[in-house]
């Protein structure tokens, strides 16, 4: 998928003025947050599990090479094949080669963010294959010709009316408006596709070294139909997905379901280990895993290593005020919200996604809900620092930051400036105490008034009032 993160600002403005999008976001935001809160409150072990999960992920990253080798050996022992892809192009080539070798025509897909990351669909379609997304959300956006706007709810930006329009166009009339009917229509449309499929592609939430299994969680069952009915099953997963044992995977599953969809468990958790066996009546004839690096080993080396703990639950975006206001498309690539604002510049380059680390208020909600305790605001701040160091930051901002540093590192000068500013703003505010327009902050005051400070700084008041008591 082409990156459009450079257009973040105009796209964010457009998103704020998109009435349908705002309606959809309003509905989504509260649902995700409230459902998660209920589940977290019900599990007294939740905080302890977060800490254990963080430690476990760090252990896996410390020994990633060994666990990957063990996982690979276990997959091969079960009759599966493991492929390694250094980058997106190599991953696409591997998958296309498998499709060509087995003479595939139809490819069904379960939801896989790695397949979005490597731009798989376009490559398959360009090669003449029919690609069918089977997750309802993915199916909706495939009909719309759009990218996912959320990592676990890809069509969260669509209203029911928009889905009705898309289905009417794709399936023909009569126009359906009830959610139950729309879900049924998708079920019917996809049923034959599962049975026709030559290749079924899914993601992998976890890869288990103990057994050589790939694990997926879904609620719809589409991933299972995809991987059970196709002749060939291909799993795409990042190299950081490996965990040592089934018990280790369980620790993450308890956190994942609660953090992602606010459930104790998703409906289906499936472990796949190799292809169909002697005597089996169903299951794929071939089982492949494509392990994708695409910048991950580079991330492992530096200060952003902690980002590799991410289990892709989406809680950070559900709790982000910026994501909640503009949705996922404005971010311009595959991963939106806080985790995407860290991952996108790291995978696609600091300058390709300049605005993303800066579109954050550092309010810290994302870090407080992250099930593996990734300090997202710290990583975002660190990216800003890297941008500054590499002179990617615009000259105007660099000068403003330099001026700020000059001031902030000299307390006397800072307090003098602060006193001056407080008095000036109080004077501009006048009797109403509100500032309607402020030079240099026109964007802020365009939509609201700035409350003027009372004329004296906090420090001044503190000194006076403490002196009185």
């Amino acid at each position, binding site marked *: 998928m082409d990156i459009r993160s450079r257009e973040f600002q105009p796209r964010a403005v457009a998103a704020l003025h998109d009435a349908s999008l705002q309606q959809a976001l309003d509905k989504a935001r509260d649902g995700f947050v409230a459902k998660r809160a209920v589940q977290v409150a019900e599990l007294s*072990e939740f905080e302890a599990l977060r800490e254990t999960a963080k430690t476990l992920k760090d252990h896996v990253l410390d020994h990633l090479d060994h666990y990957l080798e063990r996982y690979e050996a276990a997959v091969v022992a079960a009759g599966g094949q493991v492929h390694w892809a250094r980058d997106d192009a190599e991953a696409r080539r591997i998958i296309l080669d498998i499709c060509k070798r087995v003479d595939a025509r139809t490819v069904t897909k379960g939801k896989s963010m790695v397949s979005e990351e490597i731009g798989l669909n376009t490559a398959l379609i360009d090669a003449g294959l029919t690609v069918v997304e089977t997750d309802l959300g993915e199916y909706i956006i495939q009909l719309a010709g759009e990218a996912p706007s959320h990592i676990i709810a890809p069509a969260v930006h669509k209203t029911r009316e928009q889905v009705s329009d898309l289905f009417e166009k794709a399936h023909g009339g009569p126009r359906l408006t009830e959610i139950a009917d729309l879900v049924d229509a998708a079920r019917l449309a996809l049923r034959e596709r599962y049975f026709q499929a030559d290749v079924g592609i899914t993601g992998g939430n976890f890869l288990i070294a103990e057994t050589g299994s790939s694990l997926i969680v879904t609620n719809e069952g589409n991933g299972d139909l995809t991987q059970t*009915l196709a002749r060939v099953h291909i799993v795409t997963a990042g190299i950081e997905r490996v965990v040592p044992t089934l018990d280790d995977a369980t620790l993450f599953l308890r956190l994942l379901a609660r953090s992602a969809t606010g459930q104790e468990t998703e409906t289906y958790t499936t472990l796949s280990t190799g292809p169909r066996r002697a005597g089996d009546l169903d299951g794929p004839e071939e089982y492949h895993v494509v392990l994708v*690096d695409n910048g991950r080993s580079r991330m492992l080396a530096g200060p952003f290593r902690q980002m590799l703990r991410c289990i892709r639950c989406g809680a950070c975006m559900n709790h982000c005020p910026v994501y909640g206001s503009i949705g996922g498309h404005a971010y311009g690539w595959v991963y939106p919200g806080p985790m995407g604002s860290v991952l996108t510049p790291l995978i696609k380059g600091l300058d390709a996604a300049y605005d993303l680390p800066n579109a954050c208020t550092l309010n810290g909600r994302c870090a407080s809900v992250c099930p593996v305790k990734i300090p997202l605001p710290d990583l975002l701040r660190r990216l800003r620092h890297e941008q500054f160091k590499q002179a990617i930051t615009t000259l105007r901002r660099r000068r403003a930051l330099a001026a700020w540093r000059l001031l902030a590192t000299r307390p006397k000068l800072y307090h003098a400036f602060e006193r001056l500013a407080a008095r000036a703003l109080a004077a501009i505010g006048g009797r109403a105490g509100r500032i309607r327009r402020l030079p240099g902050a026109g964007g802020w005051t365009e939509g609201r008034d700035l409350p003027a400070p009372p004329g004296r700084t906090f420090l001044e008041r503190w000194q006076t009032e403490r002196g009185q008591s």
Partner: protein
Amino acid sequence: MSSAREDILDAVRRAQGRGSRDAPTRATLDARITTPVRHLRPAFDEDLTARFIRKLESRSGTIARVDGRAGIPAAVEIFRSAHGLAPRAAVGAGLKDIDWPADWTIHHDRAGIAESLSVSPAFAGIAETGTLMLLASPESPTTHNFVPDNQVIILETTRILRHFEDAWAALRKRTGGMPRAVNLVSGPSRTADIEQTIQLGAHGPRRLHVVLVDSA
């Protein structure tokens, strides 16, 4: 050109500022796989069967309880007629021994596209979340778990375990190693992809009915 595999593993090692792990470290890590670390598990006092039933029902599954395997056909028949389904079912060969009603058409093959009812044997139930564990084999084809609109799952009450980890332990003890597919199923298929509204029967079964068999 070196292989992608070597390049990636080398890059991972370089990132850690080291080469391959030495033999003693590898042995320690391997022991961690052979003997899984025991993590904290959600504690609960509730009776396992009572919790299993409560949790599964909270996820829109339905349950019938019978005394002994002889009660299974009647329980499945009640479910079938209540939903007006044709007397035809894909039954896992693991349930061949059961005396199905004479007027039913039964087959033990994989589920076809028009299949409306399947009956499958569960390996275990997990009380923690009201989850069923089904293992793929010629006796229990995976298509039975996802293709039909209705699925009935037969579970012996004695097979209800406390946590997922207990089910893994049971799986490790079983001969034949890891099955090709292990399906953990918690209720009928669902989606919330349109306006966050939960709708049952997205792609998998619309109804999930468990026949809980007490030892007679």
